[in-house]
């Protein structure tokens, strides 16, 4: 288990970094190379903010040839580390500088131990795990672990432009960000189309505050404010350490307490 002191990092839905005086560590999604956020930052903006704040960058788009050509010439200055989804970026940014973030993929301690064996010692653990699984991963590994503690969880990432395709088909003009309910369950989802992709989010805020005390010394906690409305944001920021926060906002943390089933026999 890693004894490093843990941080709380914020992903904003605007560019007002100074409006959150309690925090000085931010994750900035890199424009054109990230998906599923409300606010993106250019390299110049990132380098400028890095003079004043602890700046982490996130690059979570799957890379194609053109992306690689462009990203290889980017130069960051003074940033802390880069969250990466696509392993191609390991060779571009070097292992010491990255936090491996293959979304939903890291669900067990052996995965983390393998990363350690190849000298990748920072990674994001899936937040669809139970609290017991999260604690076990911490105990059995030595990495610097990150965890999306409060966020509207991204639950689908497509290369398709799903809203444009629908608009083309139906002659409608739906916006690039829409809220929809699934017809049987009535669960509400946000679809967000960008230049080359569509992401989908569960509309209820995932909030692990009930386990704040258990998580705060084990995981670097990420608060992702994307797609959360501003009234809720203020409340969340003031109360994120409050174990009761998940009861005070419209939130969900089903997976922290429930193992997910996957076999028909188990489901019955």
């Amino acid at each position, binding site marked *: 288990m890693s004894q490093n002191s843990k941080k709380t990092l914020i992903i904003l839905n605007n560019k007002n970094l100074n409006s959150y005086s309690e925090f000085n560590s931010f994750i900035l999604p890199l424009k054109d190379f990230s998906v599923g956020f409300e606010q993106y930052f250019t390299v110049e903006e990132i380098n400028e903010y890095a003079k004043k704040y602890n700046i982490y960058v996130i690059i979570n788009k*799957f*890379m*194609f*040839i053109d992306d*690689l050509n462009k990203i290889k010439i980017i130069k960051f200055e003074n940033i802390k580390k880069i969250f990466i989804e*696509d*392993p*191609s970026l390991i*060779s571009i940014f070097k292992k010491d500088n990255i936090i491996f973030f*293959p979304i*939903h*993929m890291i*669900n*067990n*301690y*052996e*995965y983390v*131990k*393998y*990363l350690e*064996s190849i000298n990748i010692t920072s990674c994001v653990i899936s937040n*669809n795990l139970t609290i017991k*699984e999260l604690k*076990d991963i911490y105990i059995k590994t030595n990495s610097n672990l990150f965890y999306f503690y409060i966020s509207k*969880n991204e*639950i*689908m*990432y*497509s*290369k*398709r*432009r*799903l809203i*444009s*395709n*629908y608009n*083309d*088909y139906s002659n*409608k003009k739906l916006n690039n960000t*829409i*809220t*929809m*309910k*699934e*017809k*049987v*369950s009535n*669960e509400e*989802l946000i*679809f967000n189309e960008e230049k080359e992709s*569509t992401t*989908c989010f569960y509309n209820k805020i995932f909030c692990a505050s009930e386990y704040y005390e258990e998580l705060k010394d084990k995981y670097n906690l990420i608060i992702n404010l994307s797609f959360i409305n501003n009234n809720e944001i203020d409340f969340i920021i003031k109360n994120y350490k409050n174990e009761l926060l998940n009861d005070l906002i419209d939130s969900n943390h089903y*997976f922290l307490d*429930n193992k*997910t*089933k*996957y*076999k*028909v026999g188990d*489901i019955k």
Partner: protein
Amino acid sequence: MKKPELLAPAGDLNRLKWALKYGADAVYIGGKDYSLRANANNFSDSELFQAVEYAHGINKKVYVTVNMLFHNDDLKNVIKYLKYLEKIKIDGIIISDLGILNIIKKNNILLKLILSTQSSVTNYETAKIYESLGFKKIVLARECSKEDIVRIKKETNLEIETFIHGAMCTSYSGRCLLSNYITHRDSNRGGCAQVCRFTFYNQDVENFSISSKDLNMIDYISDMIDINIDSFKIEGRMKSLYYIATVVDAYRNIIDKKVMNNLSKKDIEYYKLVLSRVSNRENAPQFYNNEYGKTCQYFTGREEISNQDFLGIVKSYDKKNNIAIIEQRNNFSIGDEIEVFGPKTKVFSDKIINIKNDKDIELTSAKHAQEIIKININSKVKEGDIIRVKLT
């Protein structure tokens, strides 16, 4: 010209045998645990052994999927299973969880490592990383274009496998938890409920759909052989025996004709018709040619049309009297036009002129599923050949 491997799915031992008989060079299968089709029949340990014995006996290969994303508890017995797969000499293991790679390496388990499409490899730099970790073969993301594939081939020594036919995810594989959140079933451990095929609504839209049509690469097989893709994969471990035999047979013929330099447009059109009839979903090439717009999606839902083309399986043939004994699968009658095809039977047409049951009583129709009946067929057929509705 290098002949690519034709790789078929098999949900059980029977379908494995049919896939190989109908021309697959290799099959991919899952054990009772750890694969992404938790609700398929799948293979017990002894069936896995039988599968390998059978395939190796006819010089073909078996790959085993261990490609779910493991949670801590799932790791408990996996070492034993991996050692068993090594012992029975499978031809490769398909994984996506690097935790499993860790266990394989720590325990010095000697298995050919194949990276699952769940890892969504879309570029040559990522492919090089996985090559450096010991993977020998990569199943590329379905989102790769021809240009992406060519570059990956050029920059690595990896064997490259791509999907050529079957269902498509709307999402990048592995990056979808729709099923988890809507149905509480873990898509990355084989419980996918295909929520991307459900419909959605809001105050402005009654039926919003994100569902993808299926993949069909028949128009591009020739091109894909030219760029040296090593393995062509058919999706569908839960598909029927008829589906597997028909799709494998179609691509076997297309590949062989291309390699023999006698593939014609007429062949492609014919097999396109065959493939369109075997599935009740529409299909398109999609990302290979960078055309994944509205024509590749369903928008209004779709009617499930039950496919009743599959009429029967030949059990034996009396060549003296031109009588085939068949096991019925769908209703047919005297006067119906049929086609017969098989692993060693070139497709031909015929017409039903008489039907008798196993007591030699004359019938006008064969109405009962799996009834053993006799029909006249003028050309020689063999055990295991398939009789279907004549395609027009």
